[in-house]
């Protein structure tokens, strides 16, 4: 048996004969690699996942043109900047009179798009058919206290609509009547001068789109809804910091735990170490043996841990965000490297300690 074969024989035999010891060391590496993978995967995906939640807040940017209406060219500019990531609802406003001659703000918009945008409106729907109007709760008390058909006057023209879809929003919209844009233009002749935009994405992407919109629509005013964008930024930053801090604490502590287990299992092998030395093995060979064993364990542990971590992250995504968090292969590199380096540190420091002791003293049991 040549030296090289002897070396591999020793390496594998040791791993096999002391299976339970190997398993406990392996388990501790797996746990570290799993937690590291879970935290890193979740952390990287967090911005995307949470930003999706902010979609439900509705319009986060408002484009207005003073004293003019948005042309179809303007709207196609907006749509090309958004690139399908969001929603655009052009809205026109005017003041009409009720049959009792009190004033009410009416607005024209694509009603189904408006409902999608303002998903938080609580709408009491009396009929399942397509609506001719969405009536704010406070406006409804005025225009049709008894529900049903009502008519609105604008100048000489009149329009009638059903108040079968009454909504609560808790904002100015509650005092408005939203008509379908076609009916609205037929009544007032006013074209939309405002567009409500929901731009999907992270705060940085939203900011970039605002910049692009300002550049391509110089005659219009493009303003973020600060209340929404600032909330999003604040919540995202805090959540990212919390997840990062908590993961850092967990990963570092569990790493220390692994190092302790690893170190102790190496220290327990002082007799093996002494026997090898007594039989004439050089320090270098012994170091190499222990180092390759630890590396092997760390590699196996990192691989299993990465797989387990990817499964856990996937499951967290499914359970909490209703969308899977997909594994990132790139994370395999830091996880593997980290595990190997840690295992080497954990294994080699006790070896250095043992090397200072005479083999004979260890074998005598001191």
């Amino acid at each position, binding site marked *: 048996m040549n030296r090289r074969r002897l070396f591999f024989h020793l390496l594998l035999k040791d791993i096999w004969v002391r299976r*339970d*010891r190997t398993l*406990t*060391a392996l*388990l*501790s590496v797996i*746990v*570290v690699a*799993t*937690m590291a993978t*879970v*935290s890193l995967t979740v952390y990287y995906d967090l911005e995307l996942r*949470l930003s999706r*939640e*902010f979609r*439900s*807040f509705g319009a986060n940017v408002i484009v207005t043109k003073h004293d003019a209406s948005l042309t179809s060219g303007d709207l196609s500019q907006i749509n090309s900047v958004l690139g399908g990531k969001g929603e655009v609802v052009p809205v026109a*406003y005017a*003041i009409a009179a009720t049959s009792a001659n*009190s004033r*009410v*703000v009416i607005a024209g918009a694509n009603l189904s798009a408006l409902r999608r945008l*303002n998903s*938080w*409106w*609580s709408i009491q729907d009396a009929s399942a058919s397509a609506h001719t109007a969405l009536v704010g709760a406070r406006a409804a008390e*005025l225009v049709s206290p008894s529900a049903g058909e009502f008519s609105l006057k604008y100048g000489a023209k009149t329009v009638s609509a059903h108040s079968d879809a009454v909504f*609560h929003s*808790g*904002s100015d919209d509650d005092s408005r009547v939203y008509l379908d844009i076609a009916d609205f233009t037929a009544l007032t002749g006013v074209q939309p001068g405002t567009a409500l935009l929901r731009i999907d994405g992270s705060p940085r992407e939203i900011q970039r789109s605002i910049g692009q919109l300002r550049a391509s629509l110089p005659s219009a005013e493009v*303003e973020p*809804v*600060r*209340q929404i964008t600032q*909330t999003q930024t*604040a*919540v995202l930053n*805090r*959540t990212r*910091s*919390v*997840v990062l*801090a*908590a993961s850092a*604490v*967990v990963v570092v*502590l*569990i790493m*220390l*735990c*692994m190092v*302790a*287990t690893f170190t*102790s*299992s190496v220290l327990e092998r002082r*007799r093996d170490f002494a026997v090898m030395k007594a039989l004439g093995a050089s320090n270098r060979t012994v170091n190499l043996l222990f180092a390759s064993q630890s590396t092997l364990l760390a590699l196996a542990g990192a691989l299993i841990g990465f797989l387990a971590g990817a499964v*856990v992250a996937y499951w*967290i995504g499914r*359970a*909490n965000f209703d969308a899977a968090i997909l594994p990132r292969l790139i994370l395999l590199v830091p996880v593997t490297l980290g595990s190997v380096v840690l295992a080497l540190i954990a294994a080699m420091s006790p070896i250095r300690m043992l090397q200072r002791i005479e083999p004979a003293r260890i074998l005598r049991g001191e």
Partner: protein
Amino acid sequence: MFLRLVFESFRRQKRRKSIALLAIALGMSIATAMIAVGTDVGDKINQELRTYSANLLLTPVEDTLDVNLGGVSLRPATEGAFISEASLVRMKEGFWSHNILGYAPFLSAPETFSWHGNSLSTTLIGTYFSQSVHYGNESFNTGVRSVNSWWKVEGEWPPDYADWPSDASPSVLAGSKLAQLQHLAIGDELEVRGRKLRISGILTTSGVEDQAIVAPLHIVQQLIGRPDAIRSATVSALTKPEDAFARRDPATMSPAMRERWACTPYANAIALQIHENLPNVRVEQIRQVEQNQGKVLSRISGLMLLLTFAALVAAALAISAAMAATILERRQEVGLMKSLGAGNGAVASLFLTEAGLLAVIGGGIGFAAGALLARQIGRSIFGSAITVHPVVLVVVIFSALLVTFAGSAGAIRKAMRFDPAIVLRGNA
């Protein structure tokens, strides 16, 4: 004899014991820190959210419609109903006093302003900036600076005058769009109804206020001759995200359920209390804020709970591995004890007693370290400490015992299965 065995084992195997202890303490500090952070993060982010937006809107019950077009209110100051400013503080009466973090009243009217020979018509809005309010024997500051913290002012916030100042013109804010269109600057004086107002700052809100003049409430009340009147108020209240139970109508519930409903800080429950204190006020959820923030919050809390759960499992596995590793190496001891006549029961109870001692000490240390970590995380991220509930200590010690026993049991069984003679000869 038994106690001596335990004691000597700790005395002679200091290194081995300290490694096991370290592992348990580390694992348990993970558990403590994660439980504390995971259960508290919802509340912390909720408080954070509350500083970005109010979630309840108060308006008079008998009110005419607000006719507001392009950010300009067209409803004259004489029309519609008002709420009494002095009565507002009564919303803090009752069970939810501490959940109501702040409020901001509003009074707006279309006015015509003139300066340097120019004139313009726009909305004059009166509100609290940071008004000190007395309620019972406590006093607190409230107003848009805390309730609407996204309002940004270039220049200076005006003070909340109690009365018209006699020595100088009162300070007001000009909306940023208005200032840009009309070339208004800080220091300009506007005249309205024969009285002068001085612009002390330019306000950006991205709402209707951008086209208005925003002044201290008492100044607007004096100007339009409506002392103690406000049109509406927004309230920032700490609420629990709405669930199916929250949406049920309290009128149809049994008394016990109604009590549970009323004692959970749902937006609806708090709105009901405010309405009971201020009967002529309609309380409406600002649904955009309330509904959606609840959703985001529950996602974040859910994520943290799942991460906590994963961390707990990981900590348990790590501790079990460490315990198994230390016991597996003690085969010789087991062999020696058995050859001296000890039964399996005696060996197991010795090892388990040791494990129990380690668990209690390690759990205690881990709890203290974890609590400290949680505090630090709270301090550095939220600016307020996360406190750990004492009941977590019990949970931590109990789970430390459970995990160390689980980790030891397998290893002990394994160690006992070997023939003592073979173990002692050193071939196992």
